[in-house]
């Protein structure tokens, strides 16, 4: 049983009449990298700020390393935090920024120096120590921001969309550095983002949030391959999953004139019947040679072709609904042509039409 580092129990938060967090329960394992993922307004930042102690909950409790910190000040919770805008103190040098909190807490000078040297070495910011934030690049500032959390010698790091202010290339580079950092430090890290790529690449586990509640908490693999509801299935994956409306009866889903035999699909409830959503990812649709052994095959007419270099995205129509297929970048398809596709039910997801839960 893994040790729990941060524990949130029945957290409620309302601003006046608006409920932002509902009865949230989550346990973060010691040393894990947990990502809170969701679109704006879902409550992920609010949850992070509650854990940090910057926001007060209306009800519920928060535990960090076994201690009830619900009423504790942020500086007393054993956390370090990195903000989207870095929030570095502009008129102090990097060294000043790193030591400010420690000096305020009357940490002895020698200890401060030791911690700064350690952080500077880990984050490779030694040559920047005498510079001011204004003279640093975005990536350097971000590392200093992490450094400020690092010198606090804490167990838990909180990240509030730290890469959102950077351009795409820098974001990709820093993502790798963050992953390397986590491998090296092995601290618990809770990370908020709206970017699913960041979530999938960095996380040990992802918590997808919507309207103040957690939709699914699981490893990237689980979330990608076994989404527990339609929202999660739709959120993860780019291009998004295809959804077909159909009716499930005795293991066969009838979509228009097509009957999909769901052999090989792991049902949660094997006896389920009724109206369903059948979800298939564009990248799981078989084309060319792969179609021969597929459990289900059909021919579709190609509507629009979008070549992206690495892939070719084909928009076709299946059972009167738009349907995306992802093919290899070298595939040559023209609009108006017909395309043979195959589907293996094992890779699909079935959701109840009403409840949108996985069947």
């Amino acid at each position: 049983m893994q040790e729990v580092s941060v524990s949130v129990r029945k957290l409620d938060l309302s601003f006046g009449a608006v409920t932002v967090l509902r009865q949230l329960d989550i346990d973060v394992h010691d040393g894990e990298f947990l990502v809170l993922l969701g679109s704006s307004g879902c409550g992920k930042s609010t949850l992070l700020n509650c854990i940090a102690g910057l926001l007060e909950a209306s009800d519920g409790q928060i535990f960090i390393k076994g201690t009830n910190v619900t009423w504790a000040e942020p500086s007393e919770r054993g956390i370090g935090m990195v903000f989207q805008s870095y929030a570095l103190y502009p008129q102090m040098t990097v060294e000043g920024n790193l030591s400010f909190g420690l000096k305020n807490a009357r940490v002895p000078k020698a200890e401060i120096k030791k911690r700064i040297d350690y952080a500077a070495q880990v984050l490779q910011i030694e040559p920047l120590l005498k510079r001011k934030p204004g003279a640093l690049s975005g990536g350097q500032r971000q590392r200093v921001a992490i450094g400020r959390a690092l010198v606090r010698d804490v167990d838990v790091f909180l990240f509030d969309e730290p890469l959102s202010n950077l351009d795409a290339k820098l974001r990709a580079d820093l993502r790798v550095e963050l992953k390397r950092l986590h491998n090296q430090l092995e601290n618990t890290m809770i990370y908020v983002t709206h970017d699913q790529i960041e979530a999938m690449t960095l996380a040990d586990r992802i918590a997808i949030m919507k309207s103040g509640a957690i939709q699914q908490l699981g490893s990237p693999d689980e979330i990608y391959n076994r989404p527990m509801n339609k929202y999660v299935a739709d959120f993860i994956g780019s291009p998004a999953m295809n959804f077909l409306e159909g009716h499930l009866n005795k293991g066969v889903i009838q979509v228009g004139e097509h009957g999909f035999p769901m052999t090989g699909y792991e049902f949660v409830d094997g006896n389920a019947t009724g109206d369903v959503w059948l979800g298939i990812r564009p990248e799981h649709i078989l084309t060319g040679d792969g179609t021969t052994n597929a459990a289900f095959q059909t021919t579709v007419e190609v509507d629009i072709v979008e070549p992206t270099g690495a892939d070719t995205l084909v928009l076709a129509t299946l059972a009167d609904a738009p349907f995306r297929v992802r093919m290899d970048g070298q595939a040559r398809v023209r609009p108006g042509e017909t395309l043979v596709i195959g589907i293996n039910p094992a890779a699909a997801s079935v959701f109840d039409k009403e409840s949108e839960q996985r069947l």
Partner: protein
Amino acid sequence: MLEDGPRGAKPKKRFSRNNIILYGTLLLVAMYYILPLYVMIVTSLKGMPEVRLGNVFSPPVEVTFQPWVKAWAEACTGINCDGLSRGFWNSVRILVPSVLLSIAIASVNGYALANWRFKGSELFFNILIIGAFIPYQVMLYPIVILLREIGLYGSLWGLIMVHTIFGMPILTLLFRNYFASVPEELFKAARIDGAGFWGIFLRIMLPMSLPIFVVAIILQVTGIWNDFLLGVVYTKPDVYPMTVQLNNIVNSVQGVKEYNVNMAATLLTGLVPLIIYFASGKLFVRGIAAGAVKG
């Protein structure tokens, strides 16, 4: 399930030490600010015997509006004894044309500077801005000579002209900054549609700049109504604006000082800008801040 121990929001003491210090200090300071207003009102509603018996803070036992009537209709300035009402109407007659003229000129100038820059326009504008910093005293006498030459020295229209001139730097800056913040695409589209200088100004810019005009009006009304120096230099006693007359009434009286009448007169003079202030709320702050940001 929840364990024992802290849960939910931390209970906050309403009367925590910090809160007491904070609100206490604010209240004390607020009293320092409200005091004069209170004193003005209270003194102006007392009869003179009561004034002599009490102090500035004591509320009136017997409320009387006599001082107000006297201040408005009977107070003497030089040979005229028709009260502050004379100064009031002078101020109004000075205010309205000055505000209209200065804003009309400055808005067109600001618009021209923002969208129709020509060679030398920036230079003249910079001179104007620097001019805003020059103390009035340096330009007082040359303007006297100018006004004498055109025969307006000592008259209402002379003062109106002066207010218009001195209002230009700040107002032009205000309007220029505002019009410069209007997206250039709007201007370009209008030119493509064939509109010219005045067309664009009257039909496109004006209708969408109501807020800045309100700010400019507030700025000018407050500044011109409260002015004293220009009033006292450029007018003769029968066209004194209210502020000049007020100072005259209070400080030039020999003999018995009627404090209640004085306070009533003071309050009357401050009433117009105060009403504007309380009515316009946030706009007032914006206007003053805009006027305050020079250069």
